[in-house]
């Protein structure tokens, strides 16, 4: 058999072995066997010295070509085997991705706190300061400075937890306004504030009454504040809390500390140009008005120069309306199943 023939035979046998190999180890052996120093190709090349000089280049080239072919084939086979091994590994690692993730621990802010912080952020954006005050108040600030002298019939509107003749659990956060008003230096600019916090009423707890609830009251005093400004501000609040497609309406009401006084209703559903007035369901959400001159005067502010508006709203009521919470006591029982429901962010 000529060397050339032998090389051809080697090629057929070797390629068949490479093709048949089924593991990396097997393939390594094949590589050593065929391409190693003791392998048949090396042997052929060694045997070239016995060839006629004219034949040498032809056989040499052929042998080299065979070596390259086998190297290439082994490389390809290796890649195929690696791919198969990877595929097998991946197949083995396949999981049920529909199983639930591992629970992470996350706490939620109370739904009332969320509403209060939302409002705080909105009013900060409109240049308001946030002011807190004492929850145990003086009658002086809770009532008298709010234009509710002793024996004023409107005191009956708010059943009060008294502590002594002069001290009480505040029934509203408006005393904070009186306190801030008397401190404010109007030469440094207008007063724009809200006061959020807990308030107390001498009520029996039931689905719609709570002896403790929350209020956010607002006050703006400057030289040129109009009732139109009040309307615009409250519309902005309604949009923030209920959505930009809701509308508000003002109805006459009475609060001793404002004149004129209004109740503000917000539409339950969206209101567009096409909505008929009789189809709008109005929900009472807050009280407001233009600050009574007596309130300003008692705080040492000249009502002939300064004026403005005040409003008060109840986060509890907002939360009940917004989320359909049917019982106000839910906010204070802190059932974990209740607290965890209000987990929407952003």
């Amino acid at each position, binding site marked *: 058999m000529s060397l050339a023939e032998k090389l051809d035979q080697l090629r057929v046998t070797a390629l068949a072995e490479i093709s048949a190999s089924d593991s990396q180890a097997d393939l390594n052996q094949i590589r050593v066997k065929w391409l190693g120093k003791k392998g048949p190709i090396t042997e052929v090349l060694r045997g070239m010295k016995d060839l006629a000089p004219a034949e040498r280049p032809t056989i040499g080239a052929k042998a080299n070509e065979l070596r390259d072919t086998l190297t290439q084939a082994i490389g390809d086979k290796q890649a195929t085997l690696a791919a198969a091994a990877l595929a097998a590994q991946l197949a083995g690692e396949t999981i049920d991705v529909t199983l*639930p993730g*591992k*629970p992470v*621990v*996350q*706490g*939620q802010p*109370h739904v009332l*706190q969320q509403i209060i912080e939302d409002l*705080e952020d909105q*009013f*900060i954006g*409109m*240049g308001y*300061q*946030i002011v807190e005050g*004492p*929850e*145990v*108040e003086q009658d002086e600030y809770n009532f008298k400075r709010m234009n509710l002298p002793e*024996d*004023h*019939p409107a005191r*009956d509107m708010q059943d009060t*937890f008294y*502590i*002594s003749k002069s*001290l009480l659990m505040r029934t509203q956060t408006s005393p904070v306004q009186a306190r801030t008003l008397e401190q404010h230096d109007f030469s440094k*600019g*207008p007063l*724009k504030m809200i006061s959020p916090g*807990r308030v*107390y009423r*001498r*009520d*029996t707890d039931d689905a719609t009454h709570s*002896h403790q609830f929350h209020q956010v009251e607002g006050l703006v005093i*400057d030289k040129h504040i*109009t*009732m*139109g*400004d009040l*309307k615009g*501000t409250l519309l*902005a609040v309604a949009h923030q809390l209920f959505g930009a497609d809701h509308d508000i*309406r*003002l*109805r*006459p009401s*009475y609060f001793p500390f404002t*004149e*004129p006084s209004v*109740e503000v209703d917000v539409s339950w559903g969206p209101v567009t140009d096409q909505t008929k007035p009789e189809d709008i369901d109005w929900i009472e959400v807050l009280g407001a008005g*233009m600050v*009574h001159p007596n309130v300003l005067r008692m705080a040492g502010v000249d009502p002939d120069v300064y*004026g403005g508006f005040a409003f008060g709203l109840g986060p509890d009521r907002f939360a009940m309306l917004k989320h359909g919470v049917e019982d106000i006591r839910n906010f*204070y029982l802190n*059932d*974990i*199943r209740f607290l965890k429901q209000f987990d929407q962010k952003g």
Partner: protein
Amino acid sequence: MNVSLNWLRDYLPITIPANELAEKIARTAVEIDDQYHLAGDMKKIVIARVLSVEPHPDSDHLVITQIDAGEDEPLQIVTGAPNVAVGQTVVLAKHGSTVGDHKKIRRGKLRGEVSNGMLVALQEIGIDDKVSPKNFEEGIWVFNEADAKSLVPGEDALTVLGLRDDILELGITPNRADMLSMNGTAWEVGAILDEVPTLPQFELTESSVPAAEAIKVTAPADLAPKYGVRVVKNVKVADSPLWLQRRLWAMGIRPISNVVDVTNLMLLTYGQPLHAFDYDRLPAKELTVRAAEANEELTTLDGVERRTQAGDILVTSANQPLMFAGVMGGASTEVTAETENVVLEAAIFEPKAIRHAARDQNLHSEASQRFERGVNVDDTFKALDHAAALLAELAQGEVLAGRVIAQDYAYQAPSIAITVAKINHVLGTDLTVETVGTIFDRLGFPYQVDAGDRFTVTIPARRWDIKIPADLIEEVARIYGYDELPTTLPVGEMTMGGLTGKQHFLRASRHVLEGLGMNQAISYALTTPAKAARFQITPVTPVVLDYPMSQDHQVTRGSLITSLLDDVAYNLAHKQADLALYEQGRVFDAKGDDTLPEEREHLAGILTGHLQTASWDQKAQDVDFFTLKGIVEQLLTNLGFTDVHFVANRERPDMHPGQTADIFLGSTLVGFIGQIHPQTAQDYRIKQTFAFELDLTAMLALPREGDHYDVISRFPSISRDLALLVDRDTTSADVLALIKAHGGAYLKSVTVFDVYTGDKVPADKKSLAYSLTFVSPETTLVDADINAAMDRINQALVEQLAAQVR
């Protein structure tokens, strides 16, 4: 106040439907609490006459009647009414009719006898029990003979009884007491509809005998600025005519007798409470208004024996108390069926005293409500005269000549000046002088306008609530319409909004805890005295309510933990055992009756059950002291506190003596952490619970570190482990402090990685293992550097803690 639309139509032409009127009133004047048609869906209820009454063969309590209902043939009706009798004019609900509460009436047999409908009582056709006349409580309604004459069998009984009427329930605010009368409401609705109301008229005929000869009256001006009486002799007390009765029950008032009904009619018409005394039962022929002494005895019309408080206003005769003036009459001089002579009283009483008496006696009557809020002083004696005229007409009384007057305060109509510019300035509108003038015209307020835009408005007595220019601005705004106001935002000098440092701190404390898995609770700040005393960081005195509403909420809390434990108990009772709750709120420390208490912002949290709950591939982990401590440590780190010490405290009441630590920042006690004492947990009906409480107000006053940047060393760090055997009561904090004190400049961090007590060490010892990390920002450390530091540490531990370094 309920307003009958039929009655209101006597004053004004009302052409719009009731619901449209209600909407206008709500948008312009006062809230509408409810609006309904008295007849509801009732039908086929007619006037009928009883032709015959025969016994029922099979029943003792039923009778068989033949009834003329205006049809060709009489109808047979079986009834159980005890008061049915031949010749009566009654109300029949015919076959196919609907009576009150949507009840349908059908032909049927009662014990074998056909009945073609039902004879009804007023209560069965929608007139409230409390309003139906008492003498028909037990039986069917029977018209009195005088009224019956004009009634025709078969005609619509609902019309006759005044039930084809719409009622508006007005929610009247304290400033609009003028609308607690039909006259006042008519003025208001007139302004809304731009109509002038026609007010009721009357003619009074007096006898020649002067009333002043029959009675004397005395009243001090400070208690009764207006006080007058009339005397009506020879009245015939009887039921009122139908027109008056139906007017009262439509408005929600029970007809009693003509004398009483007339005073009530005047109350509703003028808003002026009147009172009728039985003249012959007066102890003396004189009435004196005076302030009560404490504990004078008086039985009121409702039969209750009451005692006065000093300062209540009394009407007396021969110094005997007859009534709580302006609140409720007395039984001793009540008008009865036997009454022949009547003293009618009209007065204005001092509102504060009325308010006190009504509150003290828990007697909030129609009268007291009005006196507290004010009445129209121009109508006081008009109502008195009108009542006398009606008694003459309805009870055939003889009105003695003249009023007998003790006080007669005269109303001085105030003039209020306001410019259109000011109105526009406040409302943000662009109203003209003409528009504003039209609004005052509609309200019926006389005014003058000067050359410019200045109105001088005269306020009639019926609108005593209007006192200052701002009140006039409200009148203009509401009649003009709040819907018409522009919608703008304040313009003017810029103001900066933002949170204060404290507000940032409080928010951060909440947000950090939420990130660590704690849910925010908001609990009641008022609690029981026993609970208020518990878990105080440092002793505080709770603020005590004067008149608590319930046992559970009597005093302010002294800690937040106590509230959170209530929450835990509630959750456990509802099978919720895994709880991580926190609350941020105030704790109160009383400083006396006239001084505001100190209010401190606190933060507290509790853990019970599992924090990390079980899932399909991991087990739930029980919480313990260190779970909660990790949260608190992270919180304190995030809030910028570095000098934190946990010091075991065995003495905290209600806390586990072996699992409680006080928390110090530097040398300041700011709170504590630990397990709730098992005994206390049992009191609250809760399981093993861990809690912490921090005084944020105290913390705010302490130094805090902001974030600062340390260059991360380019050089490798070296770690060394240190295992020690120390006395069992040596704390990790002691060891750590020594390591840090002697670790040198390169000691970067120390962590505990093992704690062991048990068989492998002596019983009074424990083994602690620490990992120390050294790094230099400037150079690669060599063993020699570290060894020197470790030697110093070892020496200190051996010398100061008698530690065996292993």
